[in-house]
């Protein structure tokens, strides 16, 4: 097919050819009238595998899981109208978490656009604010080049989702295929190298700092495995403490001696107090999200701050920084490390020793302690057992959104990047099950576990059909408290214990549900049976729905209530009385 480069072909064939040219192996999609020509081409080839989902939102989350666990862009194919609108939540999720996706949508023929045709929606209009960029292709001659640009935009700079809307007549018409190589270089070329002057300023600050902390985020993961390696070397070389956002877990190993654990609203005591008390904060690929900063006015009041980010608009958006470095995390960290070595830099040993002594005092608080029970499974206990029983395995974790997600972040340890897939920015319930399938498709031999809450899990449970059809042996570890746990927790803390619609009525029997899908169901409610049940789940060769009945009223601690600074953290139930004022209650 080397001659394919100069071939005349239909738009539909161009789509498949362009995907091949970009090394795409898997497409997650759902057919419909407006993409039939493309599906016809997919039928006639074997290079690209198509995963038929049960709902387009599932397709996008699967592509996210695929992308996050491989570092490659995820590809989605949906039809016009409802196909495209169903993809919107996934696109927004990928935009907020900077996940590279290329979504191809069918559209009614160009001559019907604007006539309210069957399954017509203004897809580029609807998806404009939830994509990094999108295109409506009106001429087959532009199609291949547009898809090449789409891959370039999705994967360069700060990654994100893009959408190419392809009318059906454009798929049928023929034109000359524009090969990837001869496609005009787009002007979109984000800067990746940091300013050497700012790098020097950062290194000088690192040499002088008495109470430094690395605050890392999803940008380290997005930058690639090399960025994580450089980060580890830098942490080892400086002996600075390091914490991470939800999105950045795994870039520094949880077993590393400088690891403070996750920071933020449900972050660890030592991590948040280190952020509050530091004199030098080095933000590496994180974005000062409100879940991290708490009350902005009181955020880390005594520190100078450096911020490495590939997106200039992230810098000074929320928190003003002293050393802004626009560039790719991996490239900038390599520069910092090289300069650190070249200068023979030494840290402020005396200051650092005192700082570690202070941090160890905070660690001694053991903020993740909880009251265990011999009768009911505590969700924390379930995750501790899951961690213990799967440690060292080739393991990937996805989550849904809520309390279970925070407990998973607190109690599971991640040693490598790309092993943890969660919806951070958008907080999309229903993300975890499809994401786990996407991860499993990319890593067929690995153990892929979706840590879920029963309410989130129900939101996209139809994708169990996809897991069955494509033999993706994903393990659905559902911490079932029959409650919308996080909503319930907030109602308890700031809405006078009025539990408005925060319980799950009429839940299905998950074991029977598993049987209905043709997979295995396991139910466990006794802590004594838990280990055996988890092992049974792991050993089963196929998808499993694990209904883990846990304590119904457990709250997730530590917690920084909305509108509070880091040093006003709640460590447990005793701290919770009247903590959130009227001002905090309006925040989410």
């Amino acid at each position, binding site marked *: 097919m080397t001659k394919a480069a100069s071939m005349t072909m239909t738009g539909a064939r161009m789509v498949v050819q362009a995907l091949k040219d970009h090394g795409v192996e898997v497409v997650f999609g759902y057919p419909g009238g407006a993409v039939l020509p493309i599906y016809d081409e997919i039928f006639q080839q074997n290079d690209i595998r198509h995963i038929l989902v049960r709902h387009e939102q599932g397709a996008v989350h699967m592509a996210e899981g695929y992308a996050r666990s491989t570092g490659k862009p995820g590809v989605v194919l949906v039809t016009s109208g409802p196909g495209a609108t169903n993809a919107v939540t996934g696109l927004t999720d990928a935009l907020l978490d900077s996940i590279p996706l290329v979504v191809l949508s069918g559209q009614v023929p160009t001559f019907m656009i604007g006539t309210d045709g069957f399954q017509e929606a203004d897809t580029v209009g609807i998806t404009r604010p939830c994509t990094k960029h999108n295109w*409506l292709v009106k001429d087959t001659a532009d199609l291949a080049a547009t898809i090449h640009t789409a891959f370039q935009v999705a994967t360069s700079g700060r990654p994100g989702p893009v959408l190419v809307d392809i009318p059906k007549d454009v798929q049928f018409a023929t034109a000359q295929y524009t090969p990837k190589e001869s496609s005009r270089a787009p*002007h979109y070329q984000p800067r990746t190298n940091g300013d050497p002057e700012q790098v020097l300023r950062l290194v000088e600050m690192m040499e002088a700092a008495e109470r430094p902390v690395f605050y890392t985020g999803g940008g380290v993961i997005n930058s690639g495995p090399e960025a994580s390696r450089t980060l580890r070397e830098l942490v080892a070389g400086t002996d600075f403490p390091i914490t991470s956002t939800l999105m950045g877990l795994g870039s520094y190993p949880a077993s590393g001696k400088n690891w403070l654990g996750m920071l933020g609203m449900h972050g660890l005591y030592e991590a948040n107090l280190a952020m509050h008390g530091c004199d030098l904060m080095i933000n590496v690929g994180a974005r000062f999200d409100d879940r991290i900063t708490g009350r902005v006015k009181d955020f880390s009041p005594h520190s100078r701050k450096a911020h490495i980010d590939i997106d200039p*608009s992230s810098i*000074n*958006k929320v928190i*003003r920084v002293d050393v802004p470095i*626009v560039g790719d995390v991996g490239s900038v960290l390599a520069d910092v490390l090289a300069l650190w070595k070249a200068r023979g830099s030494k840290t402020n040993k005396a200051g650092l020793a005192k700082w570690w002594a202070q941090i160890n005092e905070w660690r001694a608080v053991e903020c993740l302690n909880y009251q265990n029970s011999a009768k009911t499974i505590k969700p924390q206990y379930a995750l501790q057992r899951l961690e213990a029983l799967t440690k060292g395995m080739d393991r990937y974790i996805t989550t849904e959104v809520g309390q279970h997600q925070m407990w998973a972040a607190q109690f599971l340890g991640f040693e490598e990047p790309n092993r943890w897939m969660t919806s951070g920015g958008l907080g999309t319930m229903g993300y975890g099950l499809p994401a786990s399938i996407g991860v499993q498709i990319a890593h067929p031999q690995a153990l892929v576990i979706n840590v879920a809450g029963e309410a989130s899990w129900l939101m996209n449970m139809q994708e169990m059909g996809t897991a069955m059809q494509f033999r993706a042996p994903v393990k659905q570890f559902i911490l079932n408290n029959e409650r919308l746990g996080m909503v319930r927790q907030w109602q308890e803390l700031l809405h006078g214990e009025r539990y408005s619609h925060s319980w799950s009525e009429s839940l299905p029997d998950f074991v029977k549900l598993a049987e209905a899908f043709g997979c295995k169901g396991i139910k466990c409610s006794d802590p004594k049976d838990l280990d055996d049940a988890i092992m049974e789940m792991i050993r089963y060769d196929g998808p499993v729905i694990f209904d883990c009945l846990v304590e119904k009223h457990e709250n997730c601690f530590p917690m920084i209530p909305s509108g509070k600074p880091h040093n006003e953290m709640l460590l447990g139930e005793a701290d919770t009385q009247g903590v959130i004022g009227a001002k905090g209650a309006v925040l989410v």
Partner: protein
Amino acid sequence: MNALNIKKGSSSHSAYDLRDPNAVVIEQHTLAVLVDNESGVLARVIGLFSGRGYNIDSLTVAEVDHAGHRSRITVVTRGTPQVIEQIKAQLARMVPVHDVHDLTAEGPAVQRELALFKVAGKGEARIEALRLAEIFRANVVDSTLESFVFEITGTPEKIDAFGDLMRPLGLLEMARTGVAALARGV
């Protein structure tokens, strides 16, 4: 050679133009945004402003380079210095945006707006309107025995002032183009 005659070195390449974010002072800035004239590009830019809660005081857009399919969007916006910086950074990272110039921050700039005023009246009021138009160097582009349409070019303030004077003299309606602006010098 830059056909569009726009100074290089604008803040679109830099995140380092840092000013006091705690200042609550609201500033008005005129931004020139050079974009690919592709379908939906205006909606994209406007959507950014509405989606992120920024203000638009005035907006002008037209293709300025037909061969290169480039449009120049001149947008007058207001906000705290931190918000202005955010607006510029958010604009600059958009895929079809080539350049963002803060004409207010980058030095002196000329700003002009064109407006048409329809004024109806008889007798003394009609003569007064014509006299004022002369002072403001407005042109009469349409005339009946009972009305004029004046064409006036100038800063938005000048046009406001002219409008205030015409109101009691029988102003019926007006149309304004919004601001077009260029930096002074080369």
